[in-house]
């Protein structure tokens, strides 16, 4: 009989390619230990704490005590980021109870960083096949001065980018198993539930899934991916709906209301192209820290769209960059954390493409030279910035203040102390009542539940722990300004703009 073609023809099914097992993990392990050591070295001393770190550490504390936030949870971000922080910081709190809360938080971030770096390696291997480019991507992602300065800070973006990389790794798995593609969707939604801004980069995961799936099962892979993503993410608005807090209304917080505020009403940071705006200043500081990766990586991303090994991460870079460049948006300081791993993957992808072409005999001398020059600049520029990151200490004042608050400060019942987010948990651990005894400065004039307990305004306050974050907000918060104005210094830690003063408020009604 004649052979018949029985079904629409699909490309042949190849057995998945498995790299040789011998010595596969040793270089990765060594590099990982080196990178983590570099971050751990100056963990507490650098960089200067950001009050957002304090907010997340405090909210993680609240999660450990059965609440979503230490004040009313107002859907400022989905809570998954600090839920993870609560879990990851617990071992450190248990083993090393004498450390400041900030350090507990940053130790937890080392775990996130380690997973992120391993995922960068995995994604690079799955996209590019060669081990040395994967190691290159991992090294760039961990050693760039931008990484060294921000990746062990307690930001939600670190969790988000870790989950997005996990989604990439699952989508690109050589096994092409349906559960991996469903899990990739779930990981994507975990990323978004950790920090919503990463949703911008979701199309890049879809490109990765397209590359990682087989034509014969792709429909189901896509259906599984979208189901995993959408239905997991929907638990967040569902939670809000069940609490009656989905839509804006009188006298209650709401998911939609907060979102509208963040998208429309919040003051933007201006355009990155206009000198003098916050966004421009931020860009300049990023460029000052690591021009090589920012410019080289962006160039690699533009070129990377054209080559398969770099396409998906390149798309992630370009999407994130385009959104950051919009004229009057809000550009947060930690935004760059989401970009760094994808910049590194784009560079590694381009490197792979160049090498493959060179091996095939039509190598482009120009690109190779550009890569070597860029590498050389990185090698000379990075150690200088890196050395500063590894030796400079900016946080002695914070560390000393934390110790004083926990060991020296008097605690009386009913005492009210204004403190920034970074030191809030330290104060609570010292026995101050969370919320209304230890008061996060940010809430003093903005949370009606706090205001109600202070009928006398600043006169009801006993102490202010004045940190740069507290002083910076005083202009917008009258009660805080009043307390600062009518107080005397009890103790000072550090000097200059970064100094921390514990101030006793002098006129009280009691």
């Amino acid at each position, binding site marked *: 009989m004649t052979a018949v073609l029985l*079904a629409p023809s699909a490309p042949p*099914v190849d057995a998945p390619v498995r790299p040789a097992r011998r010595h596969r993990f040793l270089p990765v392990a060594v590099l990982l230990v080196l990178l983590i050591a570099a971050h751990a070295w100056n963990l507490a001393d650098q960089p200067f704490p950001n009050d957002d770190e304090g907010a997340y550490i405090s909210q993680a504390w609240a999660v450990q005590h059965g609440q979503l936030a230490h004040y009313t949870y107002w859907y400022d971000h989905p809570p998954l980021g600090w839920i993870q922080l609560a879990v990851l910081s617990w071992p450190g709190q248990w083993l090393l109870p004498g450390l400041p809360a900030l350090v507990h938080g940053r130790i937890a971030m080392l775990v996130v960083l380690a997973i992120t770096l391993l995922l960068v390696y995995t994604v690079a291997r799955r996209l590019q096949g060669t081990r040395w480019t994967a190691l290159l991507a991992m090294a760039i992602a961990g050693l760039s001065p931008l990484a060294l300065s921000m990746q062990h800070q307690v930001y939600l973006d670190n969790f988000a980018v870790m989950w997005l990389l996990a989604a990439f790794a699952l989508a690109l798995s050589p096994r092409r198993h349906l559960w991996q593609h469903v899990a990739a969707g779930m990981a994507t939604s975990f990323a978004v539930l950790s920090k919503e801004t990463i949703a911008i980069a979701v199309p890049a995961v879809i490109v990765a899934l397209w590359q990682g799936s087989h034509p*014969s099962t792709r429909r*189901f892979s896509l259906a599984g991916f979208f189901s995993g993503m959408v239905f997991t993410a929907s638990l967040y608005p569902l939670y809000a709906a069940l609490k009656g807090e989905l839509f804006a209304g009188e006298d209650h917080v709401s998911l939609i209301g907060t979102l509208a505020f963040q998208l429309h009403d919040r003051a933007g940071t201006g355009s990155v192209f206009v000198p003098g705006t916050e966004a421009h200043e931020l860009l300049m500081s990023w460029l000052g820290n690591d021009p090589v990766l920012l410019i080289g990586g962006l160039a690699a991303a533009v070129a990377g769209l054209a080559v398969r090994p770099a396409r998906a991460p390149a798309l992630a870079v370009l999407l994130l960059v385009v959104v950051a460049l919009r004229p009057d948006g809000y550009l947060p300081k930690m935004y760059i954390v989401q970009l760094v791993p994808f910049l590194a993957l784009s560079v590694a992808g381009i490197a792979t493409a160049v090498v493959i072409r060179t091996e095939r005999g039509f190598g482009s001398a120009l690109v190779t030279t550009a890569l070597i020059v860029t590498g050389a600049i990185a090698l000379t520029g990075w150690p200088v910035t890196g050395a500063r990151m590894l030796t400079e200490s900016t946080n002695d004042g914070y560390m000393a203040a934390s110790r004083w608050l926990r060991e020296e400060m008097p605690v009386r019942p009913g005492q009210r102390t204004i403190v920034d987010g970074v030191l809030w948990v330290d104060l609570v651990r010292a026995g101050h009542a969370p919320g209304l005894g230890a008061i996060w400065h940010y809430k003093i004039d903005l949370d009606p539940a706090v205001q109600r307990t202070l009928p006398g305004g600043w006169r009801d306050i006993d102490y202010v722990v004045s940190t740069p974050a507290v002083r910076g907000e005083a202009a917008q918060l009258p009660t805080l300004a009043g307390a600062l104005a009518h107080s005397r210094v009890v103790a000072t830690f550090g000097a200059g703009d970064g100094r921390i003063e514990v101030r006793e408020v002098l006129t009280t009604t009691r």
Partner: protein
Amino acid sequence: MISFLAIFISVILTASAALTMWWMLHAWRTPETLHATRFSAPDGEQRMSFSLLVPARMEENVLAATVTGLLQSTHRDFEILVIVGHDDPGTAAIAAELARDHPDQVRVITDTNPRKNKPKALNTALPHCTGEIVGVFDAEDEVHPLLLEHVDHEFRKTRADVLQGGVQLINFHSSWYSLRNCMEYFFWFRSRLHLHARMGFIPLGGNTVFVRTEVLRENGGWDQDCLAEDCDLGVRLSTRGKKFAVAYDAVLVTREETPGSIKALVKQRTRWNQGFLQVLRKGEWKALPTLRQRLLARFTLTSPFIQAFTGAVIPVGILAGFLLDVPDGVALITFLPLLPTLTMLAFELAGLHEFGGQYGVRVRAGHYAKLIAGLPLYQLILAVAALRSVWRESTGRGDWELTHHVGAHLRLREDT
């Protein structure tokens, strides 16, 4: 207490729905699995002989077309045994005419049992079979001419005792429920049955099933008192360690039609459910060698009822989540069973797309919309059929509710 109950039921339902979904998606797990579900290309040799049984009861409309279709087979060694009732002269006349026209290939077997059903008809014909392999087809089946040749090769390649070929409802355009019905078949034969074959426990389908004649005779043929004699045969042969193969190919599937009305669908589903219940109560599956097989058997045979229960309980759980005074976390958990259900819906949409591609039919946006919109009502129909089967079984009504065939799938073939 309410919270505890809500969590308990929600978690159980979610787990069972997720497990069912996972099994339904078996074939698409990896490209390699999907590839393995197909018939392998035949080697051009024909070594087996076939006896094809076609029980026909009140089937004047379709019998001639079906038998003529079977006669188109490219295999050279097969006989067709049409089984008609002694009280059904209309069908018998058509069968006799067919036998007269093709004396070497078609024989008529008359079933003289006073109360008739399909297993009795099949058992009546079994002693007359001369082929090495018995194949069963229904009177309304549309069978591909190349099927036997592939089955011949598959038997030799896999050394199986039983081979289940694909059966597919085709007239998805007929109505909203036929669309859903088609998708059920697609997921069952395209995917799930392969898992059962691999696990060594299989509820066989009613047709396009091929069994070695000696194996059938050794095991006493079909159970005449069971409403799901096909499922029962699969379970019995599973417990005896027989080897199963399942192969599916869009070109080679046996094409069938969906029941012509919702009433007929409920009747048909009631019969299957009741049959599953009977097989469950017979308890032969308890003799399966491994615990995994026994769990799969118990779960598969009860799944129509779990499915019906899930369909009924999900809305109740969600209402409870909103209305009852339970903690937010608990209310969230009452929504969990919805997630696998909606995920399965997404996979059904993907399945419909693939169905359209494989069968070369145009699936329009309206069909996808119908597939989504039809889900709750279809669940309701399944729940009614499940309840009805439990009621009939517990009141001892074991008679055979016949499904009437009009040949809608045959017309579709002419249309396309």
